[in-house]
């Protein structure tokens, strides 16, 4: 009996030694992979996709229906469009200020309302444009920029905490939008209006996907081709040091908020075009929370400083993928947020520094305790032999 126990113990200790060797070989590449800042966001996205492949075998199928690409992936990318655009702006705001812009949803509503007002004039439902389409888009975007500028002035020049400063438009924004549209939902029946949010005739890809990717590219270029990215990170890491090396911290902060406002305007126009109407009570509802989450899921620090646009993009798609997956698993819409929250809690905890540190310590402890314990087992084995 004892001999069996000893053999089992020996077997295990051998197994552990093999495991250790394997680990020591793999350690450097593993550390490289997991040390990369995008490791966890990518891991999460992969996990969500794997889950989808298991539950829906036709996940990767893409077909053309009614002249449009359709399938799971195009639909996730389409639905993530507005969130993705908003997330880009949110990334900059969080990086530069360590705070968040809560007012992006209401800014979407304001921008869309201005656009709708110009297009429909005094009519609530019409298919004739009262003003040039381009002019209406421009005014809508301008409204977004102005809202962003308001937030920017509050935060950078008046030194109000970003959350409080943007709470003003968060509270008032939808009412302002209703004021513009006289409290009515505006229906824009002209098919041209749907170009932005649905499809441009002849193009087989949803415009939302194209526009959101276009802005990903634009913002990436803005950050990489100018030194805006470096400025934003410097100001976010250490405002007073940034000032002493000659950066205008206030102007950089202001700019980030203006860009965020502009992008919210774009998202507003895309969103309202998608449904062919302007409903300021619904448009971009609670999108700010998803955007903040997307930034966090992308491995960006919410206390400002370094940021990664790629991370945020992955974050935004991950959130949308989770939502779509849950729907595909027949989760009831009113239960959706519970499951979403559960998944996000797990992800956020797993990517937190403390958790990572604990895991590292745990692994180290296991590895360092094994040689001792294996020696012990032989000693114990020796004793039992004597017995």
């Amino acid at each position: 009996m004892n001999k069996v126990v000893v053999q089992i113990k020996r077997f295990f200790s051998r197994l552990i030694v093999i495991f250790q060797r394997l680990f020591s070989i793999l350690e450097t590449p593993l550390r490289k992979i997991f040390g990369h800042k995008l490791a966890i966001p990518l891991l999460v996205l992969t996990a969500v996709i794997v889950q989808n492949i298991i539950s829906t075998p036709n996940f990767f199928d893409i077909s053309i229906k009614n002249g449009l690409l359709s399938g799971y992936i195009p639909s996730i990318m389409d639905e993530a469009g507005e969130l993705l655009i908003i997330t880009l702006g949110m990334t900059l705001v969080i990086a530069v200020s360590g705070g968040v812009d809560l007012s992006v949803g209401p800014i979407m509503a304001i921008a869309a309302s201005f656009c709708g007002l110009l297009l429909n004039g005094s009519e609530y439902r019409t298919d004739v444009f009262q003003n040039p389409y381009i002019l209406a888009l421009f005014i809508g975007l301008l409204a977004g920029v102005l809202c962003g500028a308001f937030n920017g002035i509050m935060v950078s020049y008046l030194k109000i905490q970003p959350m409080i400063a943007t709470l003003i438009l968060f509270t008032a924004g939808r009412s302002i939008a209703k004021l513009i549209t006289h409290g009515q939902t505006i229906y824009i029946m002209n098919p041209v209006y749907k170009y932005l949010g649905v499809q441009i005739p002849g193009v087989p890809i949803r415009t939302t996907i194209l526009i959101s990717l276009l802005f990903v590219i634009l913002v990436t270029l803005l950050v990489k081709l100018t030194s805006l990215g470096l400025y934003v990170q410097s100001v976010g890491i250490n405002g007073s040091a940034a000032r002493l090396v000659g950066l205008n911290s206030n102007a950089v902060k202001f700019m980030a908020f203006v860009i965020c406002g502009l992008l919210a305007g774009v998202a507003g126009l895309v969103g309202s075009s998608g449904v062919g109407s302007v409903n300021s009570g619904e448009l971009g509802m609670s999108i700010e929370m998803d955007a903040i989450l997307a930034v966090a899921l992308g491995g960006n620090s919410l206390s400002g400083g370094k940021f990664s646009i790629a991370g945020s993009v992955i974050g935004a798609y991950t959130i949308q993928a989770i939502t779509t997956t849950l729907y595909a698993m027949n989760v009831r819409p009113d239960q959706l947020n519970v499951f979403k929250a559960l998944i996000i809690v797990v992800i956020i905890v797993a990517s937190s520094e403390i958790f990572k540190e604990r895991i590292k310590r745990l692994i180290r402890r296991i590895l360092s305790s094994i040689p001792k314990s294996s020696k012990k087992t032989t000693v114990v084995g020796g004793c039992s032999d004597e017995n």
Partner: protein
Amino acid sequence: MNKQTDDIQNPALTMNGIGKSFPGVCALRNVNFNLRRGEIHALMGENGAGKSTLVKVLTGVYSMDCGSVRLDGKSIMIKSPQDAQKQGISTVYQEVNLCPNLTVAENLFLGREPRSMGLIAWRKMNIQATELLRELNISASPTAQLDSCSIAIQQMIAIARAVNTKCKFLILDEPTSSLDADEVRRIFALMRHLKESGVGIIFITHFLEQVYEICDRITVLRNGELVGEYEVRNLSRLELVSKMMGKEIENLSVLSSEKEKVKPADETPIIEAVGLSSGNAKVAPFDLKMYKGEVVGFAGLLGSGRSELVRSIYGADKSVIGKLYVRGKASRIKKPLSAIKKGMAYLPEDRKAEGILSELSVRENIVIALQAKRGMLRRISRKEAEKYADEYIKLLSIKTAGTETPVKSLSGGNQQKVILARWLLTNPEFMILDEPTRGIDVGTKTEIQRLILKLASEGKSIAFISSEMDEMIRTCSRMVVMRDRRKVGELSEENIDQSMIIRTIAGGDGNNE
């Protein structure tokens, strides 16, 4: 009666053979200190002398490695700040540690409010507060909110709070550093009052005038060791300063200098300040000329306004008054960027808080100032930036794993070199180096000193601040001396020796010695 004289003869609080070390540094070595009842005892020393460590040992923030503390002859153990308070030792720190949004009375009794039936007895508290304030001659209303009081009153309330915890010994850590002359007088009145009522006070300050005005005895520390304990009336200012700096006046000899003799030619100075001052009165208006190819040292004790002076040239603090000429042209410099564009560079004293961008890479830290100078749209390409970074890593022999290493993972000396590289890259004509060698290993220190001399020989004008006298004497061709936030003198090449500098820093009666 007999007992009272005993108290005065025998120190009430004695610390013997105190030693304390931290990993890598020995902060205190065999230090003795004693405090009588009813005296004001100055604890003096330059940066890193061990004053605050000694105070923290006494108040239980740190535990000592060796030595003993005796209170009225009885050996005591102070385990924590709370414990120190129980033993009757209270501390008031430089920054007021009170709650600005509570009332004066609430602050005085916070955590030990008079209670009746479990609730705070507000009336009783206010009455007690009124009594306490009257007793100490503090003109504040107990129901006023604390932040409506001036800083001096707040400081006095902090003292009152400390005294109220039945304190026998009071430690005042630079209580006067942010006060004006009138406010200082009021604090002193309060201190004298406490002294008369038998409280022993340890007073830490950088202002020599104040020491001579109010203190009875002085204990001087240097590099964690006790220099000595003196009666104020027996120690001249000159002796005090030389003891703090560690140079005996008798033995002073001019050090051989590596510096080249640079005679400022009769050309327009690169920088000329006329009546310049920071608007917040951190430094009195001063005149200054800086020429090409010279290293000008700024000497003075800590808190003498050295940093504030150079910061006002660079536009580091808002609202500057007075006139500044750059290469003879009148310039208004309101923000660092305009200073950089005029060819200035500034290495700040506090590397962590104002220097490094900790999470960014070495490369980004090096190019950031040049990038700011160029503007946002003319981005320095990755390739170019890597070239610059490599160049300066080699030039200054910065020890880093690579250009992409986050700067926070470098050692202090190498971080400092990164900041130097950042400024050299902008090719400045006038460099302000505020304590560039602080907290840096000896090897790097000499490297930086050599670099300073080399830069000057290349024609740059350098303003150099250091707490180490030797270092400045070795490198500077001219010395501006500061005392109590005022420029008090300027020593040219032939006059730069330690005794002269110390005499000028000590000022006043020092020259009569």
